[in-house]
């Protein structure tokens, strides 16, 4: 009797939990890659922060204020690189330059490494566009790989050697200063 009650209770509990849990999984948006769009996307301000996702054959940039889609098959070139930026940027960064005893210069030494992703694509009128994104280190190569697997083109192909997905031939190695 007790066993039967426990079983019924468990089934009831699971069904309640399942009905609440399943929709939350289904509605969870694709995480995307946190990026900063430096320039190039139509309708998006320069230096806009947002996320890049690959959805329905589009490279989608979503920020709090704007959304832009680039059809992946219109991408003619994808190139990755790296860069760095100050930890203290913007207005605060500028103000630190006037800090006393050269402390602003000292703060300039603190820098954050970044990956860059540069794409070239054509619009409906065949007009050439370019867009530059910066993102945390290690995010650009997987994104490039995903873009290439979905039909984007590149002038610098990636070499898929076992053990190192990011290895590239020396002759065409992308810029890593």
């Amino acid at each position, binding site marked *: 009797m007790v066993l039967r009650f426990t079983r019924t209770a468990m089934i009831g509990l699971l069904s309640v939990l399942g009905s609440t849990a399943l929709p939350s999984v289904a509605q969870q948006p694709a995480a995307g890659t946190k990026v900063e769009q430096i320039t190039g996307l139509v309708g998006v301000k320069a230096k806009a922060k947002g996320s890049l996702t690959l959805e329905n054959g589009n490279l989608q940039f979503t920020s709090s204020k704007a959304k832009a889609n680039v059809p992946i098959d219109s991408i003619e*070139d994808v190139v990755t690189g790296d*860069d760095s*930026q100050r930890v203290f940027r913007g207005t605060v960064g500028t103000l630190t330059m006037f800090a006393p005893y050269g402390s602003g210069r000292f703060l*300039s030494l603190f820098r954050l490494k970044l990956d860059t992703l540069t794409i*070239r694509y054509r619009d409906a009128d065949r007009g050439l*566009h370019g867009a530059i994104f910066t993102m945390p280190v290690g995010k650009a190569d997987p994104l490039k790989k995903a873009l290439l697997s979905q039909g984007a083109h590149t002038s610098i192909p990636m070499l898929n050697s076992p053990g190192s997905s990011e290895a590239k031939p020396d002759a065409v190695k992308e810029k890593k200063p």
Partner: protein
Amino acid sequence: MKRILYVTAVSFLLLGAHFKLTELRAQVAPPRATKASAIQVLMIQSDDIKLPAEFQISLYENLIHQLEKQGGFQHVYRDGDHNATAVPDLVVLHSTVRGFRKGSEMARQVTTVAGKTSVDVHCQFTDKDGKNVLERELNGKVMFFGGNLRATLDFAKKAAKLAHDNFAVNSGS
């Protein structure tokens, strides 16, 4: 009689010199710039100089953005845009990178005097048939504030001003 011959010879010499000077002036002076209702910007070329992709794209995008911002043209067409072929008085801007030096933002901010980023670009404006209309060497640089890509904005502002002053319908010249 001698005097007549002397005067005639001198006259011929002066006339010849005048024609030669006119011819030389025509060769040296660039063809007169004409007004255009639209401009097409071709992708920045850098065959001889190794230019990072982000600099190439940044030069191109900033150039288009600055030309649109300056105004004076009804349309600013991108490389490959097939709508540009229908414009009769189109001016085409060809840009070739002739020099590039990637500096360091950190060096600029720490030392003030080092770390300059600069890019030298040869700008050639042609008409629709490819005839040269104007040629200039321009450069973009960032000396102190801003990242390395800011040099491309500096170049774009200069190139847009050059295009506006020489070809825009509402320019003063």
